[in-house]
């Protein structure tokens, strides 16, 4: 009797195991990334629903960061950029079947502007529906980069039927090529193709997103064929996946830069020589190779080479590579000595009895930051600066900025939130207040006034000249220290065709992909 029972159990287990490895369905792909879709509100999780192509915005962004028509087919402004009118695309349907009208867009944007947005919405003084397919905005100041704000995920257009009591989202219906079929926050979003899509319909029928918290897990998922696309891989996993024939690895630059935020109002940091010395003392190339295992990502300015207009071509004299790391360290030491900081026997610098000691905040969500911070700690110690590194919640940076306690912070700044860099510069670099993720207590009147001119100018030549002046002034005055540009590592299974990576990370672009037959 017992033997029979055991045999039965063994058989059932074998059956279960053999049923465990169904081939991946031919009409479905699985994506995994570290992003946690916490709820269905575009204000907080919109970035996931635009990536899954459920939601779309009025304005889209191409690979070069240029604005292109999205749900708005065109837009225009008056001469001083205070009045804007957007013409909506015709025959766009929401997933609930309703037609997208100017009133629906108005309602969606009105709710979005009532919630926190990662851009200054207080510049909008009025919004109105001017015809069946146009919507107009009046701004209380000249703001040339305004259309780029309407490319942000928080302004994605949501069907009127999505809103419930207090304008909370009941069921999310957008206009994208995929609609939600199942949503289990924070670990799973499943979508199916929306056949009534206004553009070219998607090829792959079903898409599932699984939150994979660890980079190593995601790497194993794509290696075993459980996932077709995995995002945000760590350097060690990339090395492993590159040697696997069933997986393709893609490395793409994204508009994000690792920066050191400085409190320029701190008594030790008011002197520009100290800030310049701290920047010079960094051996960025070693950090890039040692920590990130990616050469050529050392950052010599705020915006990376993919942000073309704002990335300034430096002369050979200005680049970081001109001098060796040892020479740079010597120059940094000289600058500190010039600024009155004398080297003492304990290896640190002192001025008026005070030691040149600073605190640096960083956060755990991006695992490389703490390693980079430790490298910086060591490199600054070599020129006599004592740095203590503190791991905090990511919110310690804006809160330290607000209460003035922040000294330095290491952070990965995302420049894709407002694809037009002018929007970022105006928000962060145009007043002494600075920005939560930008400069702090930094004053440079030339930059402030030139940025103001930039937001109003209509002449392209003047525009470019002003950009050059602003960026060179910022490079000289060091309100922030650029460390390195970001490279996003992605891997796909080799049954996936037409994969492309969106450097602005707005969309997974699944609708244009196909699955290779017979695999």
């Amino acid at each position, binding site marked *: 009797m017992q033997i029979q029972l055991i045999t039965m159990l063994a058989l059932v287990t074998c059956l279960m*195991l053999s049923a465990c490895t169904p081939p991946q369905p031919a009409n479905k792909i699985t994506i995994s990334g570290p992003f946690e879709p916490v709820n269905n*509100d575009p204000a907080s999780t919109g970035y996931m629903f635009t990536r899954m192509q459920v939601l779309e915005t009025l304005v889209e962004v191409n690979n070069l960061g240029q604005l292109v028509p999205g749900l708005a087919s065109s837009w225009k402004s008056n001469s001083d950029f205070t009045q804007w009118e957007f013409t909506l695309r015709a025959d766009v349907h929401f997933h609930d079947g309703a037609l997208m009208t100017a009133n629906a867009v108005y309602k969606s944007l009105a709710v979005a502007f009532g919630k926190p947005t990662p851009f200054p919405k207080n510049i909008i003084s009025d919004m109105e529906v001017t015809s069946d397919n146009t919507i107009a905005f009046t701004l209380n100041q000249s703001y040339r980069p305004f259309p780029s704000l309407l490319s942000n995920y928080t302004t994605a257009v949501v069907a009127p039927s999505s809103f419930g009591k207090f304008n909370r989202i009941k069921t999310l219906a957008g206009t994208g090529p995929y609609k939600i079929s199942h949503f289990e926050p924070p670990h799973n979003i499943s979508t199916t193709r929306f056949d009534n899509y206004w553009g070219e319909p998607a090829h792959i029928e079903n898409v599932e997103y699984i939150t994979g918290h660890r980079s190593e897990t995601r790497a*194993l998922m794509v290696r075993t064929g459980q996932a077709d696309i995995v995002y945000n891989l760590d350097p060690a996993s990339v090395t492993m996946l590159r040697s696997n024939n069933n997986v393709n690895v893609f490395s793409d630059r994204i508009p994000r830069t690792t920066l050191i935020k400085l409190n320029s109002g701190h008594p030790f940091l008011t002197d520009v020589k100290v800030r310049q010395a701290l920047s010079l003392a960094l051996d960025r190339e070693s950090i890039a190779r040692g920590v990130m295992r990616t050469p050529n990502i050392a950052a010599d300015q705020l915006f990376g080479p993919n942000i073309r207009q704002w990335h300034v071509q430096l002369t050979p004299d200005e680049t970081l590579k001109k001098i060796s790391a040892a020479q740079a360290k010597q120059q940094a030491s000289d600058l500190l000595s010039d600024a009155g900081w004398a080297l003492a026997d304990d290896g640190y610098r002192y001025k008026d009895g005070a030691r040149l000691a600073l605190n640096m905040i960083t956060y755990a969500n991006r695992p490389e930051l703490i390693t980079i911070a430790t490298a910086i700690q060591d490199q600054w110690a070599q020129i006599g600066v004592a740095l203590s590194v503190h791991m905090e919640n990511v919110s310690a940076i804006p809160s330290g900025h607000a209460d003035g306690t922040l000294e330095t912070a290491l952070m990965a700044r995302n420049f894709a939130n407002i694809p037009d860099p002018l929007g970022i510069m105006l928000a962060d670099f145009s007043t002494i207040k600075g920005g939560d993720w930008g400069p702090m207590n930094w004053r440079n009147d030339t930059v402030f006034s030139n940025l103001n001119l930039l937001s109003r100018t209509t002449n392209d030549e003047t525009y470019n000249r002003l950009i050059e002046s602003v960026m060179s002034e910022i490079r000289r005055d060091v309100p922030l220290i650029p460390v390195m540009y970001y490279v996003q590592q992605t891997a796909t299974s080799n049954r996936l065709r037409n994969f492309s990576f969106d450097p602005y990370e707005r969309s997974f672009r699944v609708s244009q992909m196909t699955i290779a037959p017979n695999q």
Partner: protein
Amino acid sequence: MKKILYQRLLQALLMAWSVGTLTFVLTRSLPGDMAYKIAAGRYGDDAVSSSAAKAVAEELGLHKSGLEQYLSWMADLATLDLGTSLVTGAPIIYELQNQLSYTLVLAGLAIIVSALIAFPLGIYSGIKSANNPHSTFDHSVLAFSTFLRSQPVFCLGLILIFIFALELNWLPVAGSSGFVYTILPVITLGLSLAAISNRVIRNSTVSALHSGYFHFAKIKGLSPFHAFRRHALPTSSCRH
């Protein structure tokens, strides 16, 4: 009887009040600004800002006095209203159901798996050891159990992922959308639990086999198998 019930009810209420108060005090005494942390959880790294934190503070009434917030927290608790998550906005009861259900399923299945492994292994080791104190089988199981138990569970999990997901490709690496996803975590937890419980069962079996009542059963004429099944097995299973 009634008096005891009243006393117990009072104790339960006092307990609920003290746990509620402690939770409130601990949450408020966490370092850092609460509004900023909630904003970071809600809007993510790239969108947390002072304006988002201000909006959160206004929405949740964080500017109200501590006493006011405490009273409203207690009032909600008294009406069994657990409220909504500060980060996701979903009702807490849903969050509990969602997260707890996975935990319970995993824990329940892991206990079953550990029993399926630990009982046969423990009893067999016990019998072997009772017959021969230097039994190789018993010593091997001891060594293996010590090895398993000295591993952190995640390490064991990784080893199983390497074998069953990467090499054999039988089971998925991660995910939660079906029974097949529970197999690896359940075996991991079950093995780790069984590493201890099989030793407990083995010791009980040994002491039952050395007991007077077991010898008496054999003396009165029962076969070793029957004596074991009727007299040693029940006591060794129940002892712990």
